[in-house]
């Protein structure tokens, strides 16, 4: 592999010559080798698995059985669609609540900035599962949150929206979506914070000088400048949420099963590897297509 280092600035050319032309290759080698062996290769082995037929006792043979895809999709499209809807709703919620929080931390928190950032990340250290179990406690039938929703009649709004089926909050779509939104909120807040913190507040004065009102200042100045954060935040929230099954399993019921739960069961309990692999691939392909369209629409190229 020939390595061309265009010397844009003299300093870079000098530094690079000292370091040697092969330096980037050597530096990249371990990580790229790891990613290739344990990510690219398994992806192909998953692809091959999805086109095999057979069973766990007699072994699987590659028969290019594309029908598995059609069968899997025909059977599990409701769970599939549900995953995308739940993950999408959770992403919208995290964006709506994460944006003001990120702005508050970036520009209005003064000397508490670091403390607040730590508190946003700290829940990661209390295990994901423990936090979800805490949601069970919060939404429990006899708890104050359920009481509040019943007393204010909000529960009827949720019923009308189809987010709860009875007068209980726990084990409902509402519980699953709010759990997803809660668990992935830090993934939204941190990129938003990074984008908003860089934003020069003098732009706001400039917008005001040009007679922009509050809404126009936000929509024409702040929002476009924060787009990189919005894009990476929504991706980092939507992607794991679409494949998650912990929330739907701990906070949902049999009517809230998500695709991750199906893949997990097919792989580890039903032991129907081809169907599980096909479902994994459909999920991955859907996400890649959606991300591609989304990134193009948002017009940001540099993702990472």
């Amino acid at each position, binding site marked *: 592999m020939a390595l061309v280092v265009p010397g844009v600035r003299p300093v870079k050319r000098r530094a*690079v010559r000292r370091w040697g032309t092969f330096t980037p290759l050597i530096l990249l080698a371990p990580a790229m080798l790891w990613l290739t062996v344990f990510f690219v290769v*398994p992806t192909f082995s998953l692809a091959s698995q999805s086109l095999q037929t057979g069973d766990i006792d007699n072994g699987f043979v590659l028969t290019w059985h594309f029908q598995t895809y059609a069968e899997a999709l025909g059977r599990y499209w409701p769970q599939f669609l549900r995953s995308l809807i739940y993950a999408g709703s959770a992403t919208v919620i995290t964006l709506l609540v994460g944006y003001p929080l990120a702005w508050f931390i970036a520009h209005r928190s003064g000397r508490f900035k670091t403390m607040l950032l730590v508190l946003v990340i*700290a829940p990661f250290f209390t*295990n994901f599962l423990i936090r979800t179990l805490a949601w069970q406690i919060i939404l429990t039938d006899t708890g104050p949150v359920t009481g509040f929703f019943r007393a204010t009649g909000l529960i009827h709004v949720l019923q009308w929206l189809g987010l709860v089926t009875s007068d209980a909050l726990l084990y409902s779509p509402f519980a699953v979506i709010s759990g997803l939104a809660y668990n992935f909120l830090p993934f939204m807040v941190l990129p938003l914070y990074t984008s908003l913190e860089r934003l020069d507040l003098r732009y706001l004065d400039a917008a005001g000088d040009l007679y922009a009102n509050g809404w126009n200042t936000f929509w024409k100045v702040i929002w476009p400048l924060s787009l990189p954060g919005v894009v990476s935040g929504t991706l980092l929230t939507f992607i794991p949420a679409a494949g998650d099954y912990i929330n739907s399993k701990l906070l949902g019921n049999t009517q809230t099963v998500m695709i991750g739960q199906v893949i997990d069961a097919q792989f580890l309990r039903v032991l129907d590897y081809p169907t599980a692999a096909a479902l994994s691939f459909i999920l991955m392909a859907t996400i890649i297509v959606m991300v591609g369209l989304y990134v193009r629409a948002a017009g940001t190229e540099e993702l990472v």
Partner: protein
Amino acid sequence: MNWLRKNLVVIIGLLVMAYILIPNLVVVVFSFNKPTGHFNYEWNQFSLDAWLDPCAAPGMCDSLGLSLWIGVVAAAVATVMGTMAAFALGRYRFPGRSSTNLLVFMPMATPEVVMGASLLTLFVSVGLESGTTTILIAHILFTVSFVITTVKARVASLDPALEQAAADLYATPAQAFWKVTFPLVAPGIAAGALLAFALSFDDYIVTNFNAGASTVTFPMFVWGASQRGIPVQIYVIGTVMFVGAVAIVGIAQAIGSRKRKVDA
């Protein structure tokens, strides 16, 4: 009214902070509960039992030790590999750079369930038995991309003039790197390492695919408990981890800001 408009974002921000922190407070409070049955869902009575005997739940402390060990090893390996790659991506232009960036991004864009499943098919096909080794391989895989992204941002924001200045002052390339560049990138590396540890310690889905029958990490223990009955000790560990993380980062920040003051 004007006051409200001016401070609306602060009020909303604080409310969202509460949304983030209330489940953690619930964990803290319920670590002092004395539950009536197997499940710790309803407040019954104040008790220090779980705190005085945190390892009473059979198998829990072993799983916790295993998770901490896996987290440290995975974070160490991912940080070394990721930092090296971040330097390559952050300061060199070479053919294939954008496809390398894509390769780094892809694991972050893959749902955990897909990653866990595909690793399982690989391990099964080469006959590698599931256990600590396979968990470590998986954890290094999904943390290394996060380390690369975190450190790369820091490397890219470095002013190349600083290394040039070091060279002008007769520093050798190695001296310039270790005395100028590395200390400036170090906070990014520390952040990447911490993130890698947190992601590894927190992971259930990928781990569950690649752990095998006898290896139980802490999240796997919690999952099992959530099906059978939740010992209060789980909430004690949750509390300790939360307070510990806040304390460690808080102390690091305090030292950092004091050092800055001394330097200035």
